[in-house]
């Protein structure tokens, strides 16, 4: 035996190789589908947040205010009456402010229906007083009614009750729809990943078989697929979140008429938006990893 044969051979340098072979070609369509789903999920999350914020604002506006409508009557100056009454109401306990609106303000509110060319001067247009409350639950309706009665003014007090119930129901429905949409998209993403993980296991049956034969546990084999799909989910999540942020920025920058765009996501650069977009890759990776693990473990249990 030569000296070279007596020498123990040196093991190769470097770390252990990946047990699952690279699968870039097969994974590409899944990456694209996952990125699109994450993109939609981010838009849905931003939309849900936007809907939530808008509905809270609408409810705050309705609950924290009253409106007094002064009907014009013969021989009285409605604009002046509004100013006088607003001053009295402003001094009432529980009222934070009382702003008298002019006939011109009322005409401006009616402009979407009657146009901006002005209404006939003899058309009786109610004049409004916008009242802010200290406590939405403690509106001093009786006191305001007394003031109006004492002044002999023909007016209605609108506590927005009939609107706020409808708005509350609409807001609740909008929130449910937004979060339902988000849940559906996440569920679809999980289902797609689970399907892909099963397909990947079938494609890599040789690897799974070889690992089982040498004593690998189901958990070990599932862990390999879990890590691969976590990585894929993270990358797809990052791509989807970046595109969603770009779209939201475009909407925020380009959509100056926010009222017309309240169903579109609105990027407010609030902590929620930043956290949601930053967390999207992690959540996508987590959903992908969990889906893949559960799918592979179930498949392995069926097989052996």
């Amino acid at each position, binding site marked *: 035996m030569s000296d070279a044969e007596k020498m*123990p051979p040196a093991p190769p340098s470097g770390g252990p190789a990946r047990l699952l072979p690279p699968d870039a070609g097969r994974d590409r369509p899944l990456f694209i589908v996952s990125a699109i789903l994450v993109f939609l999920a981010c838009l849905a999350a931003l939309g849900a947040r936007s809907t939530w914020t808008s509905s809270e604002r609408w409810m705050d506006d309705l609950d924290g205010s009253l409106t007094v409508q002064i009907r014009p009557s013969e021989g009285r100056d409605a604009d002046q009456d509004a100013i006088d009454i607003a001053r009295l109401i402003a001094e009432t306990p529980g009222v934070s402010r009382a702003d008298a609106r002019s006939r011109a303000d009322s005409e401006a509110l009616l402009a979407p229906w009657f146009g901006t060319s002005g209404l006939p001067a003899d058309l009786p247009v109610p004049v409004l007083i916008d009242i802010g409350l200290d406590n939405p639950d403690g509106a001093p309706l009786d006191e305001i009614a007394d003031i109006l009665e004492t002044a002999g003014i023909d007016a209605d007090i609108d506590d927005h009750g009939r609107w706020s119930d409808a708005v509350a129901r609409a807001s609740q429905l909008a929130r449910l729809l937004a979060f339902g949409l988000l849940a559906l998209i996440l569920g679809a993403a999980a289902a797609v990943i689970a399907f892909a993980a099963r397909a990947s296991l079938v494609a890599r049956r040789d*690897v799974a078989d070889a*690992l089982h034969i*040498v*004593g690998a546990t189901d958990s070990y084999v599932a862990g390999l697929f879990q890590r691969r799909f976590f990585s894929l989910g993270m990358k797809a999540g990052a791509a989807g979140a970046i595109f969603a942020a770009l779209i939201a920025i475009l909407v925020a920058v380009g959509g100056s008429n926010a009222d017309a765009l309240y169903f579109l996501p609105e990027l407010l650069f609030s902590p929620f938006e930043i956290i949601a977009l930053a967390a999207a890759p992690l959540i996508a990776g987590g959903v992908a990893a969990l889906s893949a693990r559960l799918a592979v473990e179930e498949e392995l249990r069926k097989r052996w």
Partner: protein
Amino acid sequence: MAAKAAGFRVSETAVNPFPQSESEVIVGFDAVGMRYGRGPEILKDVSFQLERGSFTFLTGPSGAGKTSLLRLIYMANKASRGVVQHFGHDTAALQRKDLPDLRRRIGVVFQEFRMLEHLSVFENVALPLRVAGQKRANYAEDVAELVNWVGLAHHMESRPATLSGGEQQRVAIARAVVNQPELLIADEPTGNVDPDMARRLLRLFVELNRLGTTVLIATHDLTLVRALEAPVMSLADGRLTYRDRAA
């Protein structure tokens, strides 16, 4: 070197096939039947024991059930009926999580090698140690020495696809024995190699048996069987018969 022929017993009608000292029985089958799904019974009333340190051939024509019998032994399938014991444990009573530990005590060599093609020879041989959670630093030198022992030191970093059939089979054998299993099973190990390589592989199995590993080789290559005076189990139509040629 002669294989250890003693310690092998078989009975087609055994009532209690397991001896008092179960530690000496590596694998015991008692009236085992096996079928895939609702298909016909592949194995019928198979009873035998493999004792520690024995060297046994399993022969039979194609379709006789050799591979199915081996699959039961390395726990890839469960028996449809009867009792299968591994290292004294009734496998039917074991939980699924217990199987990997038992599988690690069994090395398996296949005719078609079943290498992981994207891994090097070194990584393939090290696979059982790696899945057992050992650190590379702890096993690297042992694996390299084993690769050298099967004559492939110069192919340490080669991919299996670049090797000949005989070389790949030696990698498969090295992988099967790297964690020093108590039982080594080979399913047609010489099916894809030339006669000269087949003789060299057989010598490798004999050497492993001499070192204490229980060996079971399934083959229809009668030349291989005639080369040793080891006991032979024959399967025909799912039924097992036994011939102890040393007797």
